[in-house]
């Protein structure tokens, strides 16, 4: 539903170990996540961020995902366990 189905990596490609989510009540539109990891976030005209697809992070982008988490001034992004 919504998002970009193609952005979800196939499990065969190493699987997904990390998912991320943005808390819409905390996000204030600093857009740090989008600047650091544009592959993983969408941003609207008001700066509010949402994860691409269901937030699954391809293995190659895990570092970028952690960077986004560690640079959000509102502590609005969190890592959650990947769906089994």
């Amino acid at each position, binding site marked *: 539903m919504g998002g970009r189905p193609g952005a979800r990596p196939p499990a065969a490609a190493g699987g997904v170990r990390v998912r991320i989510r943005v808390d819409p009540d905390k996000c204030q539109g*600093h857009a740090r996540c989008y600047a650091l990891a544009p592959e993983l976030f969408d941003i609207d005209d008001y700066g509010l961020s949402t994860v691409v697809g269901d937030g699954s992070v391809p293995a190659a982008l895990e570092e970028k995902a952690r960077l986004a988490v560690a640079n959000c001034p509102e502590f609005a992004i969190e890592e959650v366990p990947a769906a089994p």
Partner: protein
Amino acid sequence: MGTRTAPVSSWASDFDVLAPEYVADPFTIWDQLRSACPVAHTDRRGSTWLPTRYADVTAMAHDVEHFSSLEVAVIPFEGEPPDEPLLPYGLPPISSDPPLHTWTRRLLLPWFSHRRVATYEAMTRGLCRGLIDGFASEGRADAAADYAQQIPVRVIAHILGVSPDLADTFTGWVRDVLEFADDPERRARGVQGLLNYFIAEVALRRDEPGEDLLSELLRTEVDGAPMEESLVLGAAALVLIAGVDTTWSAIGSSLWHLAAHPEDRARLVGDPALMDLAVEELLRAYSPVTMARVVTTDVEFEGCPMKAGDRILMNFPAANRDPEVFDRADTVVLDRAHNRHVAFGSGIHRCAGSNLARMELRVALEEWLARIPEFHLDGEDEVTWAGGQVRGPRRLPVVFG
């Protein structure tokens, strides 16, 4: 004038953000306060509190019920604000609380979105190149007055749809309002200059609307009626006031750092891919902006008895130097990976122009370093700093080539 100029007896109980030693080096004072008295107080210019820890500054920024934005000037007006009849709401959304804040902010945000800001980049780059052309062959320049100061005001004029020929005039008004706010006459002159200018521009656009921000505000309807003119004037004045010497100060401080730290300069020149992280780190280390809040009802905060009407100086620059949050907080680490800095504030008043400011800072540094990779200070003593609401170098002589 007495209390304003008297020497500071104690930074914990009598601080003065306009004291020359604070303007020159606030970092040492914040470090001392953080360990001894993390929320300082003064009775200068009215009862005022100064938090210095990240946790306290961000907690206050999020508590809009106790800490209102109805007064955001770091240096309060003495007596009645002279502009009150024309700007009953001040400069929304920055000087407002919800609900007025919410909808006025939504009007401005799309003008400073990622997508929109990308369309201003080529113009900004051309502007920077033209400025450098003007002094590159001379082997020296004032990187603050000849470069940093010249960039944001022209980008903002472009967005507002007003003439860039008036850039120096705009800069003068903005400095009167922010930098010389301690001088009531000068401050009133800046406010009147800005207001009279925008009143005339609004009248022009009513006859001949364009595609600029000012025209768009005039087209905006609220509950079926055109937006009140005082709100249009306030928002337009805000964009100019907030968008000029803030970013100019960030550009100037960054160039000061690179002039004074050859190892960081060489690293950035050698690895331009560092630029995005470096911009954030320079914003953290030299955050230009302090905003104020006013206490709405008596409240105890971290043991401090705050009274309704007291003012808070939202010390985002000190929060960004808090060693509890930032490893080696007083060192610039160009590739700092964990950097939740709050140079643009925190909570619902997060700087609406942050995307624009970042782009301008990045482009200004990229263009400067591409043309002038080697430069150094032409005498540390020649550098002058402004402080108060916005901190940054006002005179920054550098030599190169």
